């Protein structure tokens, strides 16, 4: 797969503008700051897609926060992974025992990755564990997990941008857009 020289040319429609993202991230930051007032919060970002959201969200939170990063392998990443089990590619840098943890996700669709992560993190004995996602795609949910903070609930379309990729591209778009179907149906 190759992207157009200007990746915005591969976008069918801008679903969420840069301004809408900024406004909603600010609102989420304010809510989280109020909910965790008087406590210290640890944000755990799930690489790679949540990086832009994490960067903006942490700066919109006004209480003390620690940050940490995790990465887990995705199904289909390699032939080996297709027949294996999910792996932690990057683990937490610090202990989260007795910490108030907020998992920061870019998108929740099937819920499979998040379900795995939540079980893993619960095993680390945090004081509390909540979930924040920029995008929620409930139509695609396979396993239900309660999500505490949702930026946008979106319909069932394949979206890229603001951290979300297709074939590792489009993460740098400043908006969330719908990828043109011919981009992913064309032979590589």
């Amino acid at each position, binding site marked *: 797969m190759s992207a157009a020289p200007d990746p915005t040319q591969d976008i069918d429609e801008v679903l969420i503008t840069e301004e809408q993202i900024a406004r909603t991230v600010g609102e989420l930051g304010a809510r989280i700051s109020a909910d965790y007032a008087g406590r210290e919060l640890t944000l755990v970002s799930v690489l790679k897609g949540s990086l832009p959201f994490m960067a903006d969200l942490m700066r919109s939170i006004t209480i003390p926060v620690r940050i940490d990063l995790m990465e887990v392998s995705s199904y*289909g990443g390699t032939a080996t992974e*297709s*027949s294996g089990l999910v792996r932690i590619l990057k683990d937490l840098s610090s202990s989260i025992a007795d910490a108030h943890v907020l998992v920061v996700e870019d998108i929740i669709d099937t819920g*499979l990755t998040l*379900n*795995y992560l939540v079980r893993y993190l619960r095993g680390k004995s945090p004081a509390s564990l909540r979930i924040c996602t920029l995008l929620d795609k409930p139509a695609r949910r*396979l*396993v*239900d997990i309660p999500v505490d903070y949702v930026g946008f609930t979106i319909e069932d379309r*394949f979206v890229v941008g603001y951290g979300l990729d297709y074939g590792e591209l489009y993460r740098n778009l400043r908006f969330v857009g719908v990828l043109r179907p011919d981009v992913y149906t064309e032979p590589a």
Partner: protein
Amino acid sequence: MTDALAPDPPPPARGPTFAHASEAELARILDFYAVRWEYEPHTFAILWNLDGDVVESFAPDFYLPEFDLYLEMTTLKQRLVRKKNRKLRRLRELYPDIRIKLFYARDFRMLMLKYGKLGIIESLSGTPGQMLGPRQAPAPEAAVLELGALEPDEAADGSEPGLERPASPPARARRRRPGRRDAVVDKPLAGS
């Protein structure tokens, strides 16, 4: 009489026999993310004749015990899923406490797109994805039940063109209306 000098080789470890390649692929995905699943563990009676005999039943493809959730997959074209939708409606009417999700061809396609496996979607969908012979489970250790010969979930339905499962003769359902007894028919375990 058994020839003691030529013993049969030990049988291979058995997993569920999937009716369709898309089901096997979903099982691999669930295994990958360490989600426990059972393949067609229950058959629900959904239609009875005047004598109270079951004439139609429905066996959802997967049950996820941690989530108390059934998943039914269909990779048929949308116009061919009418019958399955009707059965699902009937199931929900009769068993309102059951949580079940229908996974359509489009859903499966989007799942494959998400995992970068869109290139093999045609081989996993619709008629080409039918598994006419026995298949091993992709990761038998994750399967909760080891199932032997499975009953068709289309019991007493007969077949219709385009169905993704191999046509099977209507099976005589054995159980009676919910509220009487035995509304849920457990699949026979291997060797039972």
